[in-house]
């Protein structure tokens, strides 16, 4: 499971947020592994074949945040860790990573990702769908 494109581990507990963010980063040319909690993130980071270079983690995801940051330091993992405390920050951080991504043609504007996520969350909060 190795890849020539830079590898990002995205740690986010909400699929409605995680999937569009992951797709956005893939459009930027990254290989993206998705973890739904801190335990999955640790398993991924412990697997050397994945060669994870960047960890983009939501602070509020179970087992993520400072605990994950500490774990990465304790295990001397070389990955750069980027924390985001809100959806807005997460999208903003993803846009920052994307800017340095390998894709020559950059994808859609990152605010479209944010709009998409906000709409999905609003729909869920309103309970418009079953």
């Amino acid at each position, binding site marked *: *499971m190795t890849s020539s494109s830079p590898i990002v581990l995205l740690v986010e507990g909400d*699929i*409605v947020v995680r*999937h569009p963010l*992951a*797709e956005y980063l*893939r459009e930027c040319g990254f*290989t993206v*592994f*998705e*973890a*739904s*909690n801190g335990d*999955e993130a640790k*398993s*991924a980071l412990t*697997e050397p074949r*994945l060669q994870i270079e960047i960890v983009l983690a939501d602070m509020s995801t179970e087992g993520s945040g400072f605990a994950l940051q500490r774990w990465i330091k304790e295990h001397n993992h070389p990955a750069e860790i980027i924390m985001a405390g809100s959806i807005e920050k997460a999208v903003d951080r993803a846009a920052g990573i994307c800017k340095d991504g390998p894709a020559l043609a950059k994808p859609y504007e990152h605010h479209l990702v944010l709009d998409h996520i906000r709409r*999905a969350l609003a*729909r*869920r909060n309103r309970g418009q*769908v*079953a």
Partner: protein
Amino acid sequence: MPQGRVETAPQSAPARILVVEDELFIRFAIAEALRELGVSVVEAASADEAWLYLTNGGMVDLVFTDHRMPGSMTGAQFASRIRQQYPMLTVMVTSGHFDDEGWSEPILPKPYDLLKTAADLAERAALSSRQKESDI
């Protein structure tokens, strides 16, 4: 979105598969194998998460789900729920130890051949996508 229907990806878009698997490295492997075949993949770590995705208007052509997973539903229960609410959506269940009598359709036994399974799923999803397009 009306119940009983999952929105299909636009005509020119690749087929979309929702992979539901709690074993991280199996999920990574099958998702990457499908992406290599040009499939757009949504990854869920449990049936609950996958259900949340679908009921939020998630667009997929096929659901590929493991059976034994943590959470409120097994894969078979999740598949039965999809059958009731989204009868047009293709569902495949995989398991190493299948014990649910509520799902009478064939299941894919684990361990499965990664590349063959990915190719089969991609083909089924593309067929499902084309069928939905022709229904519109």
